[in-house]
């Protein structure tokens, strides 16, 4: 599972806390709570991650996301102003990057998080090339 990492950390913490619980009974309750939260979080995050998807079509990029509030954005390549590739410290540790497409409209929302760095680079170059060839003014 994609988000098993943080969850595994939480579980490890809860097991350690459980070990300490023999000396202090309230601790085992806390450990159980942490475990339940971890499992629920893992399920929710997993759903959110799986809901995230994108497709490169001939003329536009489609980005889908959201579980409760579902969103699908269609951004024509010609409308792209620039492409952003960012990677925070945690993302870098896991070899991931976020690709974001910017158009002249502030409301445009085409962000693709958690791409493997290699794929992010490919996507960026691809989008930049397509944007160049289909550029339309404002």
């Amino acid at each position, binding site marked *: 599972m994609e988000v098993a990492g943080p969850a595994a950390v939480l579980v490890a913490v809860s097991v350690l806390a459980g070990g300490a619980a023999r000396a202090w009974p309230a601790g085992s309750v806390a450990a159980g709570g942490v475990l339940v939260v971890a499992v629920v979080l893992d399920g929710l995050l997993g759903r959110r991650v799986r809901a995230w998807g994108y497709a490169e079509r001939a003329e536009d990029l489609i980005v889908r996301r959201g579980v*409760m509030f579902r*969103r*699908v954005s269609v951004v024509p390549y010609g409308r792209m102003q620039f492409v952003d590739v960012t990677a925070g410290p945690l993302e870098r540790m896991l070899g991931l990057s976020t690709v974001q497409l910017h*158009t002249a*409209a*502030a*409301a445009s929302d085409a962000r693709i998080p958690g791409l493997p760095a290699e794929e992010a680079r490919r996507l960026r170059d691809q989008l930049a090339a397509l944007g160049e060839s289909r550029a339309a*003014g404002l």
Partner: protein
Amino acid sequence: MSPLVRAGPAVAVIVVAVALSGAHQNRTAELIRLGIIGFFVLAGFVSWAVTRWRLAEGALQIETGLLRRQSLRFPFPQIQAVDIVRPGLARLFGLAELRVRMASGSRSTGRLAYMSLPYAEAVRGRLLDLSTRSGPNVVGAPAPAAYLPTYAVDPGRLVASILLSGPALILYAIVAGLAVTAASAPSATGGVVAALATTMIALGTAAWARFNGEFGLSIAVAPDGLHVQSGLVQRSAESIPWGRIQALRTVQPLLWRPFGWVRVEADVAGRNVSGRRNRAARQAGRALIPVGSRVEAQWLLDQIMPDRPGDPSRPPARAGWKAPLRYRHLSYAGNERYVVTTSGRLRLVTDQVPLSKIQSIRWTAGPLQRRLRLASVHFDTAGRSVYAVARDRDAGEASRLLAELPARCRQARADDRRVNGP
């Protein structure tokens, strides 16, 4: 003259301060004040003396700065609009400032201050000519043959419309509340007034800003674009080339309905948003008709966006469960060139967006919408205040829109280019 006008407000403040404290003064204080005035005038003079501009190499180039040289380039094709602004003091001297607006943020405004009014107008004409010749042109409107009849806002109606607007109503409510407090508990009045003073001042300022900004507004439809003049103390003359208008919004507040008044706003990319103006004024968008009759609004819309789609379709009745207040105002209509959506809880807001100006399309569905098999489709434009949303459509229809519209937008963009050249 420019240095004097630029330093004007600062000098005026100091002169007033001197006048106020004039009773007891000594030599040194006097000298310090004179020095400050001199400094501002000198600073104004230096900034004027080191500024050079020219029209060359396909761009307006401005070089400025004494210690930190700054060189700005404003390529003609990217110019969104050219304004002539005349602050109160500059008007006394017959001077004007030229502002060139580009597509991006607030720093992207080129300012040429100050030049004589006829000269400023000549430069503006030249800039507009260069920008329309080298940029994308019309949204759809064939350039009208000559200057068409002008619309001018009626001052009395403007005052009445502001008195009937939302901020004014809040102000009345506060005043009424104060009156009640004064009558029932006179001792508490002082505290309540103090607590509400800032709100009242803010509301009053907003109302004044609107009056000051939209007084005497008039529109001329010219071959190169729309010419909008407005302002009471500070007169401004904006020229918006055809095809730079990203979207139009028609607003009809609840209280205006008995009088049949409507407001028409245009959204232009890179609209100059000065920091001094309050949030409400920024969100209001550029008023083309601050308050006018339906006939006037219709006329202007036809000038800017002819062949708009007719017979809007309502969302399914079950959308009323999700948006009970909005439901009666919701509609969507589209053809090969425009989408027109309506919305609004109390006021009726109609958004007109040319397909060729749509930047991206978003389909959204929240939990409640999914339960009711509804979805919204958003049309994002480069403008700042107008956003068209086809709200709470049937899920199947929304998916169809999302599937069809990208191709239709592409076609509209291609048509625009064919008609107007690249």
